[in-house]
């Protein structure tokens, strides 16, 4: 079963994303910011990373850049979960190596449908 890393500084969003994924049968690991996420990525293998952009300590863009430097994450899909749908934010995410983005308000059905597009 696919294992997904969920990174968000908001407990409720993280819980919701995780709950949605678990109810669809995915295994999830949660992290509360980029640094935490990176630490967890170093000790686990994931099939997908879903990360918030705006986070304290290390934001999602930086996390994405760091993950791409790790060999096991070179091709792992990384999705940015964010309300910032501006082009600028998309470009920044892309240049850091993000696979795509999910626009909040987040809808569980849509989340599941969308991740099918990237999860192997």
């Amino acid at each position, binding site marked *: 079963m696919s294992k997904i890393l969920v990174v968000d500084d908001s407990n409720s969003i993280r819980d919701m994303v995780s709950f949605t994924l678990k109810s669809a049968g995915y295994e999830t690991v949660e992290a509360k910011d980029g640094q935490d996420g990176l630490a967890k990525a170093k000790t686990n293998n994931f099939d997908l990373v879903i990360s918030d952009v705006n986070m304290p300590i290390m934001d999602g863009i930086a996390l994405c850049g760091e993950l791409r430097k790790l060999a096991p994450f070179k091709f792992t899909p990384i999705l940015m979960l964010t309300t910032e749908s501006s082009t600028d934010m998309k470009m920044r995410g892309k240049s850091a190596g*993000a696979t795509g983005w999910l626009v909040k308000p987040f809808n569980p*059905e849509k989340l599941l449908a969308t991740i099918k597009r990237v999860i192997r």
Partner: protein
Amino acid sequence: MSIDLSQFIPSFLEESFEGLELMESSLLTLQQGDDDSINAIFRAAHSIKGGAGTFGFNHVTEFTHLVETLLDEMRNGQRNIVQPEVELLLVSVDCLRFLIKAIRDEEPCENSKIAETAKLLEFALQKQEIEAAVTTNHEITSDNSQAFSTWLITFIPEPHLVQTGNDPLLLFNALAELGEVSLEADCKELPSLLGLDAETLHLTWTLSLKTSVNEDEIKEVFEWVEDECQLSITQQKSDSAENKLVSSPLVEEAVKAPQIKAVPSPVVVNSPEKSTQKSKSETGSIRVGVDKVDSLINLVGELVITQSMLSELGNDFEMSKLTRLTNGLEQLLQNTKELQESVMRIRMLPISFVFNRFPRLVHDLSKKTDKEVTLVINGEQTELDKTVMEQIGDPLVHLVRNAVDHGIESKETRIANGKSEVGTITLAAYHQGGNVVIEINDDGGGIDRQAVFDKAVEKGLVDTSNTLNESQVFDLIFEPGFSTAKELSDISGRGVGMDVVKKNIQSLGGRIQVQSEQGKGSQFKVYLPLTLAILDGQLVKVGREVYIIPLITIVESLQVKEQLINRVSGDMVLYRLREDNVPIIPIYQLFDIPADNKELSNALLVVVEADGQKVGLMVDDLLAQQQVVVKSLNDNYQQVEGISGATILGDGSVAMILDVPGMITMALKRAQRQQSNEKASKKKIETEVLA
């Protein structure tokens, strides 16, 4: 599949309140160029908006969006951080708090203030002519999608496409969910096996898709890669025959089902009304750090080990195993103690939960009173029981209000007295013994002792002939109906304050102390027990009963010296304790029970203090000091005068916990009754003699 997320609403609400608190405290200290703060504020607003959108609280989302946009401009340096806008944001925080409270309590959230604030926010945003990006809530555009049509798609990805984690195969799978796909790969660019680099793409594709969805939805599949590929999507002629086939609504439904942009399930959108019923009003939940839970689990593990060791010992016990048994019991004691501390820690929260509201309060009050006040907070990480925390908030608010309103002088007075025109209020919390001490200090005018005394005389609380020492005079301000403010202000000084403050603190098992120096300032010290569930007690014996005296009330214990006893009228006996005369209350008399020792000389006296009144409780014996678990008498039996609760001792017997202030009032009442009885009987004798 529809997934019900309503169970997450309470945690969203809780988190939102926390976020608002953070926004508020950061806004109060916000300076130009303070990127960390502005980012933190922005993130808090952002989370609230995200969560609210998810649960369909659209009014919150819309309002927060305005706030967020304004903050974003400040964050990006497009807008300077100026006071009027910070004030506007503070008001917005209040509005949001109102909105979220309304959701929690299922109350209507219409309020003219909110609409007004929203207008002000919009106005502020327009002022710099920065276009407010409206949340891109893609409308579902499925009206013209009933008809099947065939699309020709050419997809030429950049060679590095896979390096962002995108996989063409998965994109094609997604397309296949929209309809019927056939595709053809162009391998022209594919190098020989030797030159093949597995990390780059060399293929291009041509696809044909027969589907009922429109172009936008096909494009959406490629949304994440549109900058990294050449993509062309062209519509072939639509097939009229098939068009007719799908005209039945049922089929239409079936065809639309795999659409990626499904209509949000009604369960999710409409659930707020349904699910907040559970979360009405304050949720009785505590957020506990994982470390605390882990340590608890760890300790339980150790307890289980000890238990199994002991039960093994007990199987066939011989005297030779006695050392191991005592060791085991020792370990059990240790485990229990640690477990208890660990469980108590779960209920502990940092006092910052209460202190957080003060920066705003002081900010608003200093505006209202036209005084400049700096608030200094120390020790906000000091932990306190959740119940105590919830109940101490209001008394502290009152004390802080008083400090701003009555304590700190007006700017003019301060300057005239050679003080800096900015007043300082210091809030501090720290542990002292088994207590948490909260200090409220101000460097204001101090309390005018004479004014307090005069006022007390005027109110009939004391007699002019009374000679009171300093602390006794200050204690007068806690008397019901006492207020020294010359004019009533709308901030404080309604004269209902301080006695309620004191009563609240006492009901928590705490006490309050005042110190003040005229011209220099005042200090209020609030002593609170760490927790209400467990009490440090002194076990004492009277006859066959064991009573528990709360350690916090005990001043000292001593053996009575005959020559220091003073008998006054009635049964009241005073004991000379240095410069004080302390009334002796024999517990056996008060509760009317048998005692081993009824002689005053050489008796044991436990001197306790409550409400500034010291009394000596006469007991037969002092036993151990220990922590006891407080059980309410109200819940299990009924209120008994002079007893605040009960506990179960190690041997299984029940011991009463003494309510020291209650006992003092009981004893005083009894003494007064006795005095009047005596007077009455004296009079009777006199009249009889006269007759």
